[in-house]
């Protein structure tokens, strides 16, 4: 519809928005979804009009005084077919159109910028890759695909941004994702839309859309000093993951360099892709996700790591692109105060280079 007349469309939407009858369109998918929405409104109005006209006109034409003798009519197969096939046809058109939009909303593009969101009773915590943390707000730039990876610390929540027309359930136990590309700078509502207990109505916030320059400035001013991956590295080190996950020949666990996105074969013979969900599961339920060729000795970290911690670890592993990085971490492990007392496995050489704990910030 917006192709038919952009001017009219803008006018309609702006008018409705100004009267608080319609939410603003602030994402690329919003006009597409609205087009389908208005199509269904149109079909509904036509359907309702037909029904009302039929009932009203028959009631007038055939009311008792005007038409005292009813004519018994069995039915009409032709009519039955008509009002079966036409509605079915219309519904199927809507189904296909809607399915296309649905797939679009839940299939993120490859270059999307990733933001992790943890929902818990009764607040939202957003974590940007560069280490910026937000509570009950989300800053995003225009013109860039943003993917949200969501998980709940406790019960079901739902991350809802009406202005973007996106919404996704946030569940405990597994990641869900959704993506959008914001188009209009401004501040928009963020709601939790799955009943989650006492302060469900208060689990709200703001989504702040900024131009790319403003966003860069915001990132620079809000960073906590360490990127998410660096937080993850620290956690990786303090949990002594490197004791098994290192680059030595006789390492008890696979080296994690470049593992993100690769195809693995598990000990059960099953082939999996090592994505976010897999990495999370491998940390929390390792014995079901052992890579082929390794013994099932990895302990579970359930209860020892929060969902934010797991996110940081996953981010770290995502950026682990070379054996050298793994080596750096191993060194970091040795030099960290938390790991004092954990003796390095026999045969490991201590690296004499100074540890580099600053990594690049990738916004």
């Amino acid at each position: 519809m917006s192709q038919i007349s952009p001017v009219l469309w803008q006018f309609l939407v702006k008018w409705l928005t100004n009267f608080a009858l319609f939410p603003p369109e602030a994402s690329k998918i919003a006009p597409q979804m609205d087009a389908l929405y208005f199509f269904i409104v149109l079909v509904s109005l036509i359907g309702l009009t037909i029904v009302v006209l039929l009932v009203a006109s028959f009631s007038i034409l055939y009311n008792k005084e005007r038409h005292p003798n009813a004519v018994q009519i069995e039915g009409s197969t032709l009519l039955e077919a008509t009002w079966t096939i036409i509605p079915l046809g219309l519904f199927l058109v809507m189904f296909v159109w809607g399915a296309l939009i649905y797939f679009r909303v839940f299939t993120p593009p490859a270059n999307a910028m990733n933001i992790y969101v943890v929902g818990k009773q009764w607040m939202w915590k957003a974590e940007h890759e560069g280490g910026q943390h937000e509570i009950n707000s989300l800053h995003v730039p225009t013109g860039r695909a943003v993917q949200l990876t969501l998980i709940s610390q406790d019960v079901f929540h739902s991350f809802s941004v009406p202005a973007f027309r996106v919404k996704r359930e946030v569940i405990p136990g597994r990641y869900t994702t959704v993506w959008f590309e914001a188009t209009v700078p401004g501040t928009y509502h963020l709601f939790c839309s799955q009943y989650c207990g006492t302060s469900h109505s208060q689990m709200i916030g703001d989504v702040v859309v900024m131009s790319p320059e403003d966003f860069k400035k915001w990132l620079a001013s809000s960073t906590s000093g360490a990127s998410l991956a660096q937080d993850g590295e620290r956690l990786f080190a303090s949990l002594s993951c490197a004791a098994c996950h290192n680059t030595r020949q006789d390492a008890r666990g696979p080296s994690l360099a470049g593992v993100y996105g690769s195809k693995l074969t598990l000990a059960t013979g099953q082939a999996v892709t090592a994505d976010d969900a897999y990495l999370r599961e491998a940390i929390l339920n390792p014995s079901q996700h052992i890579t082929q060729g390794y013994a099932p000795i990895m302990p579970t970290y359930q209860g020892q790591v929060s969902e934010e911690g797991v996110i940081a670890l996953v981010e770290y592993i995502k950026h682990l692109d070379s054996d050298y990085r793994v080596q750096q971490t191993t060194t970091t492990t040795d030099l960290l105060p938390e790991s004092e007392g954990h003796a390095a496995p026999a045969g490991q050489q201590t690296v004499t280079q100074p540890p580099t704990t600053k990594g690049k910030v990738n916004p």
Partner: protein
Amino acid sequence: MSSTIVSLPDQSTARIPKDNYLTRENGILSWLLTRDHKRIGILYLISMTFFFFIGGALAGLIRLELLTPQSDLMAADTYNKVFTMHGVIMIFFFLVPSVPGALGNFFLPMMIGAKDLALPKMNLASWYLYMAGGLLALWAMITGGVDTGWTFTTPLSTHYVNTNVITTGLAIFIAGFSSIFTGLNFIVTIHKMRAPGMTWFRMPLFVWANYAASILMVLGTPVLAIAIVLVALERTFGIGVFDPTKGGDPLLFQHLFWFYSHPAVYIMILPGMGVISEVISTFSRKRVFGYTAVAFSSVAIAVFGFFVWAHHMFIMGISNYAVLVFSLLTMLVAVPSAIKIFNWAFTLYKGSITFETPMLYAFGFMGLFTIGGMTGVFLGVSGTDIHLTETYFIVAHFHFVMVGGMLMAFLAGIHFWWPKMTGRMYPEKISQLAAVVTFIGFNLTFFPQFILGTLGMPRRYASYPPEFQILNVFSTAGATILGVGYLLPVLYLVWSLKYGKIAGNNPWQATGLEWQTQSPPLTENFATPPIMDHEAYDYEWLENQKEKEVASVR
């Protein structure tokens, strides 16, 4: 509306028949231990009216809170309990049993020419189970309430609240048995107790509708039962079936819960659709257009209704392909309802139409159910569901179909069959006024909620952004009017018990077998067992009968 088909006996000489099901026996025990399906229907009617007004009061509290953007009328926890109990009571203790319990029990046997249901004692047990469940739910409400939402979403309901979840779950479990027994009874009765000559395609469409609903009751309710049992076990023993830290999956609860709860909505609406068939036919003096299509569409809705449950879960992380399948099936289940609406509309064609109160409610049903049904399409289409789900759009959708649809149909049925049940007519003018007031109040209450939902206002919120206030105020204003619209019938119907005009056998000149006996009916329904020698809705047969009918009543 000066023309009417109402045909009453001469009021100066008419009397209520001395021997009828109400006078056959006396005393409270004769009611509490009755096997008579008609008395059981009356028992259901009284008790469900009671529960309806409690649920309605809770609704009033919700709307009062939502007058202002802040959560200022009651504590957040209290509000959560209020909307939970509103949902539980309205769904399980009013809507599900409404037409089957009150009208189905009363009229199903009569419509097929039987003396009673197949299993009268089970029928009484049904009512007691209903009362036990209802009273237990009220007890749960009084002693602290439940605040999980009527959907009992895990893990909130299993691990994060310490309110009366198990008690309420048990109440619903017990009421579920009531539902199962009623469904069983109806199915057996329809299969085994039809009068001679009463073939399947001569049965009134009301019977077909209840048959389809009974199939759903029998097959769907047990799955809800097991879902509730598992929640109770999870709460008590921490068995872990819904706990991710123990390997369980909270999404499994969603599947089990919605596997029943979607067919449940068809359990609620199908009997109401049956009422509409009867009313439209009677007040246009015509057989229902496309009888076979309407009969089969009831069964189609029942069958398809079992295969669409995950459309309540489109954004919950089920796979995209599952979404495709369920969205497609949802489109299919929408079609039979459309078929019915058009068939009813065309029943009016070349009919002889009058606008008595039941017909007004039926027209209200047709308009409001069309809107409600189409808004269901918005939600069944996966793309738009993303934006609209879990908002006030959903609240508006289901209130349109359940209240604008089902409750209107229920009221249509009550008014239509009131003369038969009580022997008295209700006052026509005030009842027409009540119907119009209800229609206006309903639209004012719930139409703004579609807009609120599109704006993004989530459901189950006690507070909201200030720009949503105007629409909420309209909605609350409408609720007040709606309340008046529902209160009026209680008042004038009770009034009519003593002062209403005597109705006679067949005030509406309707064709069903139930109208060929006295009002109120005998305990055994028919003095001599009827033989069905004509088609359903055969108004020509009725003309012949009138010539033979004796003018005075016993």
